[in-house]
Structures are given as C-alpha cells and as structure tokens.
C-alpha cells in the first residue's frame, strides 16, 4: 500500500480529467508507442509527431507545470548532444561560422536538434505516464490482464520500496558522516566512502529478503491457484480499439522505417 500525503491511494478520489481517467494499460501503451516512434522513425517527422502528441496529452492531463522538472533533467544530455554534434560532427564541411578553432556545421546542428527532439519527446512521454498513473493501479490492471504474479510483485514492490531505500540511504549517509565519512574532500577520500555507503545498504537489503520471503509465503504467494484481482479498473471498447490501433500502427511504422519506405518524409 503506497501512501500519498498520508492517505492510502484506495481512499483517494478517482482521477479527474479525460486523460487521467484512461485505463492505466492504455496510458502505458501510449508511452511505449511514443518512445518507439520517436526513436524508430528517423528524420524530423518521428520526434516532431511524438512531441505534438506529448504536448497535447500533457495539456489534456493538466500536468504542464509538473513536466518542468523532467524537462530540466534532460538538460545535461541535451547540452552534450547539441555541443558535441554541432561542433564535432564527423565529415561535415558545411560550416555555419568559423570562430578560431571552432567550426559548427549545419549538418551537425540538424543531427543534434533531431536527437534533442527525440530525447525530449521520449523523456516527456515517460514523465506523463508517471504523473498521471498510480503504480498500484497499473500493476493491478496488468495483473488482471494476465501478467504473472511474480512479475506483478516485482513491479509493485520495487516502486514501493524505492522511497524506503532512499530513506535508508539518507540514514546511512548521515550515520557515516557522523563517523567521519568525507563526502566533500579529495577524490581518493570520496572513493573510500563507497563501501561504507554501499555495504550497510546491501547488508540490510539482503537481510530484508529473508523477512519478505517468509511474509509472502505466509500469505500464500506460492499457492498454485490464480490470485483473485479485486480492483477492476474501468475500460471501454474505444480504448481497446485505441490500444489495438496503437500497437498495429506503431509496428507498421517501424517496419516501414526499417525497410526504408518512409524516405518521402522530412
């Protein structure tokens, strides 16, 4: 059971807005299709198409402002893509300008901007899924559709355990700092902090494994019968059609792109 502001998810009001109300599997499939099209359809069309869909989805889901941290997180990668490719694109001779030893090229710039659009479109598509979908709902819906209980457990438990592990790392870091761990000094001193940080975290995690295994066994995790899924999330024939169209359309686009049949697109 995950908590949001101290309140269990199942007592929260249902999601509002047309995009948020979509079935979690539909939203997952939209995100995956967007990623595949952004990277699979080369040139300008793939990333621009995905960016347009992502922007529309973001507005529809009213998460525009919440996307900002995810957008900012791409800055190091985007800056690197733009700098390295614009200034050091192999074999490009169409120089934009020559400033001393630096000679950015149009070919490099075009390649860099395309790569940037792909990265941003991909990161935003994943972010929208994260911002509009509750982990428990997604796992419950996937389990209802036949996903194995072990996979469902790994997905659900991992998402729930990350905040707990983050909290444990914070405690370990503070405890080790109190014992003299140097996190600001020379690189050699910081390297020596690796094992004091990683060790207690892993020891604790491995000890937890035994407790978790026993708790799961006590609750019939290995029982041969199929687990009853209590939460059935709303789905509609329109969404089923949308999922089918998305899967088929994406596959078709990727095959056409690989076969070089999309050369007419910019």
């Amino acid at each position, binding site marked *: 059971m995950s908590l949001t502001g101290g309140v269990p998810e199942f007592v929260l009001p249902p999601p509002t807005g047309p995009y948020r109300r979509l079935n979690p599997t539909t939203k997952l499939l939209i995100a995956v299709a967007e990623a595949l099209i952004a990277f699979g359809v080369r040139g300008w069309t793939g990333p621009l198409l995905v960016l347009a869909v992502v922007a529309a989805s973001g507005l529809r889901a009213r998460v525009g402002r919440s996307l900002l941290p995810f957008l900012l997180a791409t800055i190091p990668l985007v800056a690197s893509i733009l700098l*390295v490719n614009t200034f050091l694109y*192999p*074999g490009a001779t169409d120089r934009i300008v020559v400033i001393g030893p630096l000679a950015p090229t149009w070919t490099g710039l075009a390649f860099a901007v395309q790569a940037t659009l*792909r990265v941003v479109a991909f990161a935003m598509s994943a*972010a929208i899924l994260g911002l509009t979908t509750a982990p428990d709902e997604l796992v419950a819906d996937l389990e209802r559709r036949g996903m194995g209980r072990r996979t469902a457990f790994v997905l659900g438990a991992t998402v729930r*355990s990350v905040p707990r592990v983050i909290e444990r790392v914070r405690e370990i870091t503070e405890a080790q700092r109190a014992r003299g761990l140097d996190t600001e000094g020379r*690189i050699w001193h910081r390297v020596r902090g690796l*094992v004091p940080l990683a*060790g207690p*975290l892993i020891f604790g995690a491995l000890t937890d494994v035994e407790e978790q295994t026993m708790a799961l066994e006590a609750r019939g995790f290995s029982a041969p019968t199929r687990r009853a899924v209590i939460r059935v999330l709303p789905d509609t024939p329109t969404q089923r059609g949308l999922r089918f169209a998305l899967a088929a359309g994406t596959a078709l686009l990727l095959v056409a792109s690989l076969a070089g049949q999309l050369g007419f697109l910019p």
Partner: protein
Amino acid sequence: MVVAIAINIVLGYTVQTVLKLPIYLDSIGTILVGVLAGPIAGLVTGAASNLIWQYAPGIGGGTIGPFAITAAVIGVMAGIWGYLGVYRSRPASGPRLWLAAIVGVAVILFLASRIYNNPAYVDPNVGGYPGWVFGAIVGIAIVASLGVAGFILVRHDIAGAWVAVAGALTGIVAALVSAPIAAYVFGGVTGSGTDLIVAALRQGGQDVYHASLGQGLFSDPIDKTITSFVVFIVLTSLSPRVVARFPLGERIVSDREE
C-alpha cells in the same frame, strides 16, 4: 530482486550526488543478483531496473530506458561469473599471491595499452588529437594497477585478480553493447562527464559510433571493475549463512569456510 532493483536505482544516484564521483555504479544490484542467483535472475534484474526506472509512476523519467539491453547483458555476465565461482574468496600467500597481483596489473596495463594505442589518439593523419587523454590513461592505469595489486596483497586473496578480470571483461562487453544504443538513440553521447572523451575522439576524426565505442571502452571497464570490487567486498563481508541461501551461494562460500 526487488531490493536489488531499488539498490540499482538509488545507489547509482547516491554515489553521484553524495560522493560526487564521476562513475555510474548503477549496476551493483544487478551484479550482486547475477552472482548470487544466476544469469537469468541477473538478466531480469538488469533489464527491469532500467525499465522501471524509466517508466515507473512516481520514480520514472530520465533517459535510461534504452540501456536496459546493456543492463541485461551485465546481469547475464555476472551470472556466468557467479557460476564459475569468480567471486569466491581464495586466501593465499607467497608466490601465488604475487603471481595473482602481477596478473591483475598485467590485465589493467594491457587494457590501458589498447586504449592508449587507439588510432584516434595517436594517428597524426587524423589530426587534432588532444594530449590530455594520454595523461589521463597513464594516470588511471597506474592508480588502478596499484589498487588491484594492493587489494590482492593486503587482503592475501588472489580472488582480486579474478574479480579485476571479470569486471574489465564485463565493462568491455557493456561498452560494445552500449555504443550502438548511444549512437543511434542519443547521437553518441550520454550527458555525463565521459562525453569529454566522445568529444576528444570526434575531434580525432572518429565517426559517431566509433567515438561512442571508444568512450565506452575507456570508462566502462573502469566503472564495472570498481563495481565488481564493491560487490566482492560486500560478499566477503556477509556471513556464509546468508550467502549460502542463494542459488549460487555455495560457489561463493565454499573456500571461505575451509
């Protein structure tokens, strides 16, 4: 597996933000699971880590998803090392200990020489090769050699040589798998400090793929060797009772209990 995935996600981030080290260390959990539970468990842990990190509601985002294939391969290799008993402590003394230290150093120097002799750095025909790369390679090779030799001699454990070899090989394979992904998906860069090496290689005349591969072959063996040593230290610090519970546990504890 659940805690290993969480460790992968959290520890890589912590090492970079708390200790501010220019290494990834986002595969400690994957290697740990692979070594303890075999190649399939390692594969699933590696791939799931990246996919969950990318897509999981609440913790998702970023751009790590496409490297799920690399993480899966790292997990498989860790499983093979676990099956071969590479991470088993092997106490020794005398000539065997010195021989292991020499082997460990030789492996590192061999890898460093392969990087040092990369045509992008030394071929005057391609031009523009940066001098700082030579210093970095020599410096890192010396530090790594001293580290591995010291580890083996101080701990009186020849397993250090095996762990160094396993880590370096894992890094090389990870670089080979990552390069086409980075080149195709991200234009050859990853957004980390190692992009300086990509820039240097591009300046040296390499194309997008080979510059990405050259960067991976430079940084991944270092990263995976450090990760392997962290995992080895953790495993040797655990009680044999805990380690022996895992499917490949007996391949790790057998010699320690003698």
